[in-house]
C-alpha cells in the first residue's frame, strides 16, 4: 500500500509573483481616489477697525450691486448712474483707472443680494488689476 501513495510535492515557496501587482493596484487606487483640498480664492485686506480714511469723491467709483445682480455704476461726483451687467465692470474699471491712477472702487452690495453677485464684481475688479477696493453694504 505504501508504494501506491501518491507523491504530493507542493512548492515550499509563497507565490510572490503577483505581490507587486497587488501593491501597485492599491497604490494606484489610493492615488486616484485622493482629493486634495486646495487653498484658493480672492484675497482682500480689510481696513483696521475704526480707521476711517477721507477720500476725495473724485477718486471714487461707486459700484452698487443690486438684488438682481445688475450693477449701478456712479463715477465720483457725477450724479449719472449707469446700470450694467457685472461682466462689463472689468472694462469700465480699466478705462476709469487709466484716466485716474488713484481710483478707489467702492463696492456696495444690497443686503439681500446673493453673495455671488458681489464675488462677480470683485472678480472683475481683481482681474482688471484693481487693488484699492472697499466693500460695503448698500444703504437704501
Amino acid at each position: 500500500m505504501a508504494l501506491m501513495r501518491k507523491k504530493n510535492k507542493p512548492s515550499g515557496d509563497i507565490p510572490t509573483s503577483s505581490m507587486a501587482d497587488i501593491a501597485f493596484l492599491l497604490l494606484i487606487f489610493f492615488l486616484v481616489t485622493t482629493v486634495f483640498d486646495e487653498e484658493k480664492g480672492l484675497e482682500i485686506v480689510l481696513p483696521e477697525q475704526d480707521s476711517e480714511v477721507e477720500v476725495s469723491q473724485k477718486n471714487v467709483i461707486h459700484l452698487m450691486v443690486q438684488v438682481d445682480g445688475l450693477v449701478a455704476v456712479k463715477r465720483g461726483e457725477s450724479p449719472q448712474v449707469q446700470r450694467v451687467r457685472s461682466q462689463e465692470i472689468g472694462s469700465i474699471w480699466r478705462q476709469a483707472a487709466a484716466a485716474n491712477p488713484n481710483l478707489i472702487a467702492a463696492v456696495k452690495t444690497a443686503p439681500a443680494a446673493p453673495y455671488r453677485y458681489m464675488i462677480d464684481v470683485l472678480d472683475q475688479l481683481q482681474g482688471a488689476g484693481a487693488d484699492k477696493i472697499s466693500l460695503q453694504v448698500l444703504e437704501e
Partner: protein
Amino acid sequence: MSVSKGGLKRKSKASSEIPSSSLADMAFLLLIFFMVSTTFKKEKTRTYEPPQAEATQKREEPRKDVLHVYVERDGGIYINDQLLQLDQVSNVVAPLYEENRSMIVQLRADREVPYATVDQLQKEFQQAGAIRMVFYTELEQRATRERR
C-alpha cells in the same frame, strides 16, 4: 575577424528574466510612504457651493495659518465644527488670532447667502483684528462665463 562564424560564440549566462522579486517591496514602500505623508482635514466636510471667479488664485500659505469659516446655504456659520451665531464670531476668532498673528481667515460661504451675512462677518473679523481674509472661490473658466 568574424568570430561568430568561427564557432566561438560564447554562451551568455545572464538570465533573460527581469528580476521581479523586489518589485513588491518597491510598490509597498511607495504605498506606505503616501499613507504616512497624507494629512487629513481636521474638520468635517460641509455642504456649500462656493461662488466662481476667474481671478481665483491658488494660495500658498501653510495650512496652520488658515482659519476656515464656513457659511452654509441656510446661514449656519461654522468654525472648527462649531455652530456659531453671527455676533459670537469675533469672540471666537480673536483668541485664535492672538495665538497666531499670521493667520488668514478664509471665508467659505455658499454663493446664495445674502450679502448682509457676509458683510456682518467681515465686521466681526475686523473687530477680532484678523484683517487679512480670502473669499474662497472656484476657478471659473472663461467659456463657462460666456454661456451664462
